Each structure stands twice: as C-alpha cells, then as structure tokens.
C-alpha cells in the first residue's frame, strides 16, 4: 500500500515523513548516508579513488601527461577536471554529448579546485615555458542517487592524495624530457575541501544529503564547500526558493562538521594503504 502511495503522490509521501522529523529511508533530517572510500581502484591510472555515499557511486581516475605550459601562465601546470554522467548511472541521462548537469558539475569542480587552492600549480611545472604536468581528472558516476557534487569533491580529493607523479628531468644535451618511472613522488595537497549538499522542501524544511527522489521533489538545492580552516570555498545555490540568513548559517555549521568527518575518513584510508605496503 505504501508503494502505491509513493508512486501516485510522491510529494505527499515524503511530506508525511518530514512532518515526523524524519525521512523515508529512516534517516534524521541532518544525517548523511554512510560514506565508503576506496583508493587505487584503477591500476593503470596515476591516482584513483571510488566513493559511495549511500547508493551514489562515483569513481575518479587521474592521468598525468606532459605538455607545454599555457602562454599566460608559463610557470604553472594545470588540471582538467571532467565529470561524466553516462546513461549507466540513471535513466535520466541519455547517450551523446555531455548534458547540462554534467557540464555544470565539471565547471563547479573546476571552480572548487581554483577557489580552494587545492594544489600549487607551480609545483606541476617542470621547466618554465617548456614543460609541465597536466592532470586529467576524469570523474565518472556509476550510480546516481542524488548528491553528485559532494561525491565528486571527495573522490577527487582522495584520488589526488593517492596520485604519484614520476620524476622528470630535462637532459641538457638533447633537450628532451627523461621520465623515471621507478622514482615516484606524491602530490602535495594544500587544502581539504569537502562539500555538503542540502535540499529545501516547501520553502522551510532543510534536509541534508538528498537522494535522487528527494532532489527532484525539492524546491531548492544548496551545496556548501568548506576547507579544514572553516573557510568557505563555494556557496552554490543555483536558484530555487529563497533561503533566510539563519537557515544558511545552519547549513554552513553542518558543512563544517561534515568536513571534519570526511577529513578523518580520507586520512584513515590513506594511512591504511601506507601500512599495507
């Protein structure tokens, strides 16, 4: 009977739970779904990670290639993030060129990388104006159940922490680059940006970590990205119903606590691989 009600009147179904201050999957309004993290999932990539937030599964692979630095920043390397939402992850996405949600997510990740000063781009430069590293970060969603942006940020952070770059020297005589695959160095990560997504229901109720169903029924979505110093890297609210100042502050506080939880998780996983070696 409940399944019939859920299909016929999804909004009323969810409202009946929200009235009792809980959600249809049994979570509290401010509770995140269990998050699991796995790194070095892709052996052929220079760095990789897989994250699951509830059912949402996102994988990231990092490939480092050598290229000439851009003319407007000759002493910096660069990163190219790309978020892909294949038809595999949800019936919402059709095959073909990236849709709007994928493009908006790619731009959002690029902005977070820049805003949070994640890695020093100067460190990616090998020789000024001649050679630098470009990191292609390919983020692919395998199972879409809401809260894509949070998962993308966590998986990118974990993959970067896991990435190892070979040492490159420029032979002075031949002026060619020599890559030493045996010697590998990890990347230096300056900041730990972590995102928290919220959905607003009926202009008043705020829930944390919405599932795909809750996202489609919500009246507004908000993503707050904080770093480990409690500074905000992004407050992304693409329209929707308005949000008052105190509600926004409440979301920011929740995002700050979430940052600490995720930083601990990422730290634990990286430590466990080091001890395993």
């Amino acid at each position, binding site marked *: 009977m409940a399944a019939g009600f859920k299909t016929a009147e999804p909004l009323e179904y969810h409202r009946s739970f929200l009235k009792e201050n809980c959600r249809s999957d049994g979570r509290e309004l401010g509770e995140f779904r269990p998050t699991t993290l796995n790194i070095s999932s892709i052996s052929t990539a220079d760095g990789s990670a897989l994250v699951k937030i509830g059912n949402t599964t996102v994988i990231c692979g990092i490939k480092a290639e050598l290229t000439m630095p851009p003319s407007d920043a000759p002493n910096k390397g660069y990163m190219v993030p790309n978020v892909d939402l294949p038809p595999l992850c949800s019936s919402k996405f059709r095959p073909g060129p990236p849709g709007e949600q994928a493009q908006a997510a*790619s731009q959002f990740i690029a902005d977070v990388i*820049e805003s949070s000063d994640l890695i020093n781009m100067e460190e990616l430069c090998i020789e000024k104006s001649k050679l630098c590293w470009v990191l292609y970060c390919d983020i692919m969603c395998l199972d879409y159940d809401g809260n894509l942006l949070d998962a993308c940020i966590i998986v990118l952070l974990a993959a970067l922490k896991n990435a190892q770059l070979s040492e490159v020297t420029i032979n002075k005589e031949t002026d060619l680059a020599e890559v030493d695959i045996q010697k590998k160095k990890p990347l230096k990560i300056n900041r730990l940006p972590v995102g928290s997504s919220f959905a607003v229901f009926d202009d008043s109720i705020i829930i944390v970590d919405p599932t795909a169903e809750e996202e489609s029924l919500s009246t507004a979505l908000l993503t707050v990205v904080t770093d480990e110093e409690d*500074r*905000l890297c992004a407050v*992304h609210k693409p*329209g929707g119903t308005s949000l008052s100042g105190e509600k*926004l502050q409440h979301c920011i506080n929740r995002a700050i606590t979430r940052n600490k939880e995720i930083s601990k998780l990422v730290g634990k996983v990286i430590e466990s691989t080091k001890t395993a070696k």
Partner: protein
Amino acid sequence: MTLKSASCATRGLCLRTMTELDQSCSVLREYGSEQSLLSKPDGSSTFVQGDTSILAGVYGPAEVKVSKEIYDRATVEVLIQPKMGLPGVRERTREQCVRETCKAALLLTLHPRSSVTVILQVIHDDGSLLSCCLNAACMALMDAGLPMSHLFCSVTCAISKEGQIIIDPTARQEKECRALLTFAIESVECNVLMSSTTGSFSVQELQQCIAISQKASEQIFQFYRDSVKRRYSKIK
C-alpha cells in the same frame, strides 16, 4: 501583450550606499535599461551596468517539444550566447543559475505544457556578468507580461586581497580580487534566491556580502518600479 509602446529607456543614477562597515566600498555603477526594443520576442530588454551590457529576449508561453513538456507546469529554457564563439561549459553553469532563479519567480503552473524561453546575448562584458544577465532576464520577463510571484535582481560582490568588499566590480577588479560572490535577491522579503561564488572567504565575509547585496538590491527594485511607472504613465 497588446501594447506596442515605443521602447522606453530609463537610466538609474549612481548612488552611494553607506553601510555600518567602514572598510567596504559600496557604489553601484551607473545602470540603465531599455524594454520592448525587439519586435519578434514577446518581451525584450537590455540591461547596462557600467560597461557591461546584456540583451535579453523572452518567448513565452509558447509550444514545447513533447520530450520536454511537463504535464502541470511550463518548461523554462535559458540560452546564454557569449560575445565570441559558441556557448561552452561556463555558459552552462550561468544558464543553470538563471533558469532556476526564473523558475522560482515565474508562476509556471498557470501555463502547463508550454515553454518559456529566455535568450541572453552578451554585448559587452566588463565584470558582474551573471548579475547583469539576471537583471536583464527579469526586465524582459516583466516586458513579456509573464505572471511572476516576485521580482528578482542580482548583485555581485568582490572581496579584494586586503579584505575590502567591492560591489558591482569591473572586469579588472574581478581579476585582482580574492573572492567573487554573486547573489540573486527576491523583492518580497529580500532573501537570497541564488548564490554563486568563486574563491575562498570566511563566514563573516559571506554574511557581510549578503547584507551589502540586500541593501543594494533595494535600489535596483526601486529602479524597476520607477521604470514600470514611467512606462505605463505614458499610456493614455
């Protein structure tokens, strides 16, 4: 709209807004708008902020493709055409912001199975581009006569490297700043409808920027009221 009035232009005056915080500089650049300048779209407008200029056209309510139709409300589409080249990934994020803001303001359930298309053409970009797009979109929606539950306007704040908050920055100020925050404010209770930020900033700076944007939005809403009053007072 049955009224085919000549295009009316109104110019907003550059006003200085003082806030309690003495280290912030809050001066909106000179802004102006012109409505009903294009004959084919149901509503059109330009919005000029300093040197930044956007031309907006609205078609709606119009026919919608069966694949895109929604059974109980209108479908909103936004297209942003950059000054040069084809629309890229950056335009997609801006389109998403403008579209979701318009969806919240328009009464879409009055026109089920229809489409409302907002097309924005960048004429010149000298900073505060997303804000200018949103303001132009709102003026064009008003010109088209589409029913809305509230109006919206947008303000951009830049936080310089020294911590000074600059409102409505130019392109050069945007390049030199540490953080750039764009907010869309609604007219009824001056709450934040849309927020898009780049760069890192503290929670206090965010609250300050929101307060400054809300104060500046009052001027822009007064400008909307004046331009509508001036336009309809000419009709006999």
